């Protein structure tokens, strides 16, 4: 992907050779070395997350992404989006996985949009990325929770632990975003056009942080119940195996007296063998019925 420049007059994105410090640009990290104006600001920003110089501002914000992990399925991943904002330009720098959806989501709705408004949109997009990922993680948690119904292994539990940790990472990343925005707001003059945009983004960040934090806390709090469910699955299997063991013991126990080397009751009765078989299995059957009624066999 080459450096993308948004042509306002045409309302389309076009490939640009270099960053020209005017307009809206999308860049990947590999393209930065072709932009000497950006390089210094970005270098500072990597160290400090926020770099302000005169009316230029560079922010490095954490963005949440989803990715497939061979062991744990869908998990969250943190990437960083760097925004270099001047009153006349906005350069957005990030890996291709971040840049492409941003570009796709905006196309068609960017016409006549001022740089300041685009900055606000990007900031909101960064903030909402955490909420979007949190929603997917919650859906995944709910799926895993249902899978736990029959699970006796730790596979689902381990995945739940990873997802809970990912939710925690989202909260931390949102807090980090809040700190950067707060610092950016402090460093911006009250009369600057960027001030109300940063202020609105900061308020939205607080709201989303509170929501994601609430989800994280509530889901983390019930993790012990999941342990209980898995243990209960193993207990249930043992319960059913034990009731079968008891059932098999019963005919042996009831028939044992007729093994004795003594004169036995009804020993001359022609049908004694059939009678005894009917007796022991009848008693066992009655016990099985009673056990079934009391849920001994329920899995």
């Amino acid at each position, binding site marked *: 992907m080459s450096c993308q420049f948004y042509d306002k007059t045409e309302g389309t994105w076009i490939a640009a050779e270099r960053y020209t410090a005017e307009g809206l640009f999308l860049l990947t990290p590999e393209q930065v070395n072709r932009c000497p104006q950006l390089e210094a600001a970005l270098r500072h920003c990597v160290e400090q997350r926020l770099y302000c110089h005169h009316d230029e501002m560079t922010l490095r914000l954490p963005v949440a992404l989803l990715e497939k992990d061979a062991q744990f399925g869908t998990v969250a991943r943190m990437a960083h989006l760097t925004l270099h904002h001047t009153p006349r330009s906005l350069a957005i720098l990030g890996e291709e996985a971040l840049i492409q959806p941003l570009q796709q989501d905006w196309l068609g*709705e960017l016409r006549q949009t001022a740089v300041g408004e685009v900055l606000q949109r990007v900031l*909101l997009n960064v903030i*909402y990325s955490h*909420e*979007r990922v949190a929603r997917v993680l919650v859906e995944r948690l*709910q799926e895993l*929770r249902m899978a736990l*119904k029959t699970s006796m292994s730790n596979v689902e539990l381990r995945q739940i632990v990873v997802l809970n940790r990912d939710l925690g990472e989202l909260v931390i990343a949102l807090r980090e975003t809040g700190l950067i925005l707060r610092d950016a707001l402090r460093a911006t003059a009250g009369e600057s056009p960027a001030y109300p945009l940063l202020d*609105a983004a900061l*308020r*939205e960040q607080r*709201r989303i942080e*509170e*929501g994601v934090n*609430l*989800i994280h806390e*509530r889901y983390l*709090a*019930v993790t*012990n*119940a999941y*342990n*209980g*469910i898995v*243990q*209960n*699955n193993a*207990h*249930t299997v*043992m*319960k059913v195996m*034990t*009731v079968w*063991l*008891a059932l098999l*013991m*019963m005919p*042996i*126990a*009831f028939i*044992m*007296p007729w*093994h*004795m*080397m*003594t*004169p*036995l*009751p009804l020993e001359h009765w022609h049908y004694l063998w059939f009678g005894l078989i009917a007796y022991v299995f009848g008693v066992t059957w009655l016990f099985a019925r009673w056990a079934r009624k*009391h*849920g*001994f066999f*329920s899995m």
Partner: protein
Amino acid sequence: MMRITRDSLLSGNANRRSWMALVAPSASELTQAATTLDIPESFLRKRLEGEASRPLIKEERLISLQFQVPLPKEGAAGQFTLVPLSLYFVPGYFVTLAEREIPFLSHLIDPQKPSKRWELVLRIIAEVTRNYLPTARSVAREMAVVERDLRQAQRHDVVYRGLDINDRLLALDLGLLQLEYVVSEIGHFLPSEDADLVEIHEDTRIELSQVRDQVDSDQATINELLESYAYVVHNNVNHLFKFMAALIILATIPLFIPGAAAMNVPLGPFPHWRYGFAAVTGGLVLVEVLTAWVFYRKGWLRLS
């Protein structure tokens, strides 16, 4: 469905506005509404699609608010749907947009007694807040049913029901959080000289905070209880284990008492003794009864 009621409320400068109610609008109705209101159609569509956005947006000629309204499901106690309700103020119009009919809106928006726009918004929010309260109570009441079933439960279904209650309370809490944000943001727009409006705002804020505290406390309770639920289910299953282990011990006794008289060795007088069977079986029954009595006294033969 699109419905327009003329002169339903007052604008900031006391001009009358019409109320446009959009309930599960079709694509053509959305286009028609956007044209009438002279706003981009995406403003309406995105809210309807539930895309993440700020709950309160103020632009040059538009104010938009969104929050979730809990509506109970018919015939299912404790079950509800959170319906996103969007409000728009554009010149000449007040718009409500939702996927379902919100029953109380038509009571609150009365063309005979038109109210000011922020007063109306606060009254709608107060009504929504009041809707959260019984919904949260009915969800929390389900905990009592779960606890009743817990006594006999051997499976984790009760734990799942607890988890479901927890999820529903979380959804309500998130809805209230959004509402709290909207109310706090509205505070910036209210004219400070209008004491009545400021008072309604403060009342709504307090009411909202109380409902949220209650939902939070219900949720904290169920979070704490869920672990105990799992242990109660374990205990119920363990009772069965204990009972069956006692039963297996009782079933093992006949293996060695009659077994002693069944060996393939000379058994003394036993093979010819007329009362041999009765004596050994009587001894067996005695040992069984004694063992069972001891087990019963220790509680090993009780199921609950």
